[in-house]
């Protein structure tokens, strides 16, 4: 295989397209899971990712997908690092990611989780969550936990449809 060159920015744009294995409508960049991409003079690529939740089972799959995608572009010396700090927050989800999520049928996070976390003494008031199907704000939580660590199960009282909500975290 011929030597491949590429700037960190080029490599980042390749890695940025890796989809999340559990919510494939989002990329790891949309999620804020992709933290950094670096390449040194010898061509060694280091990709730094962070888990959404401590037990997120998607991290190993993401690491494999990153390596596979880079290998296809000729980058074979790749290290994927898992970084815990600073801790991921749903506020890192991009605006584009929020739109994609809503169109996919999952209510996006508010983007204000950190503000609420900074005032833990206040009983958290749930901000109105809009139904991703009909747009009504008349919705309620059915279950605080859902099909993945990052989602809760909600239902719309207007159109009666149940839907996933990406949790504020």
């Amino acid at each position: 295989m011929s030597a491949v060159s590429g700037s960190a920015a080029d490599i980042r744009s390749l890695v940025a397209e890796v989809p999340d294995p559990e919510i494939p409508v989002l990329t790891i960049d949309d999620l804020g899971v992709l933290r950094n991409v670096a390449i040194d003079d010898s061509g060694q690529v280091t990709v730094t990712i962070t888990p959404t939740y401590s037990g997120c089972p998607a991290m190993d799959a993401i690491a494999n997908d990153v390596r596979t995608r880079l290998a296809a572009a000729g980058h074979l010396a790749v290290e994927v690092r898992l970084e815990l700090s600073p801790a991921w927050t749903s506020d890192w989800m991009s605006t584009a990611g929020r739109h994609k999520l809503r169109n996919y049928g999952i209510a996006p996070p508010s983007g204000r989780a950190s503000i609420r976390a900074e005032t833990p003494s206040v009983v958290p008031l749930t901000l109105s969550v809009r139904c991703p199907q009909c747009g009504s704000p008349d919705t309620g939580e059915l279950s605080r936990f859902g099909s993945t660590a990052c989602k809760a199960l909600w239902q719309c009282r207007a159109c009666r449809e149940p839907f996933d909500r990406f949790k504020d975290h």
Partner: protein
Amino acid sequence: MTEPAPTPVTPTAVTPTRDPRISYDAGTYALRLGDDALVLAQRMGEWVASAPQLEEDVALANIALDLLGQARPLLSYAGSLLPGADGAARSEDELAYLRDERDFTNVQLVELADNGDFGRCVARLLVFSAWQQELYASLAGASDDTLAAVAAKAVKEAAYHRDHATQWVLRLGDGTAESHQRMQAAVDAVWPYVEELFEPDAVTSSLAAVGMAVDPASLRDPVLGYVSAVLERATLAVPSTRVRHSGGRHGIHTEAMGHLLAELQHVARSHPGASW
């Protein structure tokens, strides 16, 4: 194209050289916190497909997964600081699957069997998550980078678990006469195991002195304050028992522990080195 062999995803880099005594204590401390999370993850996993409702199966499985996720970097870190007899770092899997009961250093609270009693599951989760939330909130500011990173990430998860347990205790305690009585019995059953969470010893004292650990005794007031307030709102009595069990931090466990480890470790021990 052949898949590249998966390289293990590494936790945050280990702090390099430090006093060997401090390293040993830090490893011991990480092992304790990792064992707490691992053993409770195993206990909560037992509820999958047996909880009172489908949503609760999902909830308890999610909580167990968070705890397992917390246990992994803690055990990896402990394994790097407490090498095996050959001097090599021990992996998270070695620590989880190949240690015997006396080498586990979790508090007894997390190993107690629920025996299908959902009240006990919820009572234990209330106490444990309230403790973990306070612990991690303090530990996030610790001078040990790895412990601080794990704590800063996990504190939000612990807070969510605590909210979940709180809602159930309120609902069951302040529910029907039957649910009230059973929730009270569950709290009473768990209570003798609570004080162990707050016991300091030489390890925590030496680490707390250099800002690397949280003094367990400092957590007692905020944790019991939170739990007591929830019990009161739930019309439940704070137990007055003076019975207290402990010893988990030093490898002394209850009868339930051996059975738990048998299930946790059986596959890994029967098929050494197997992967899938």
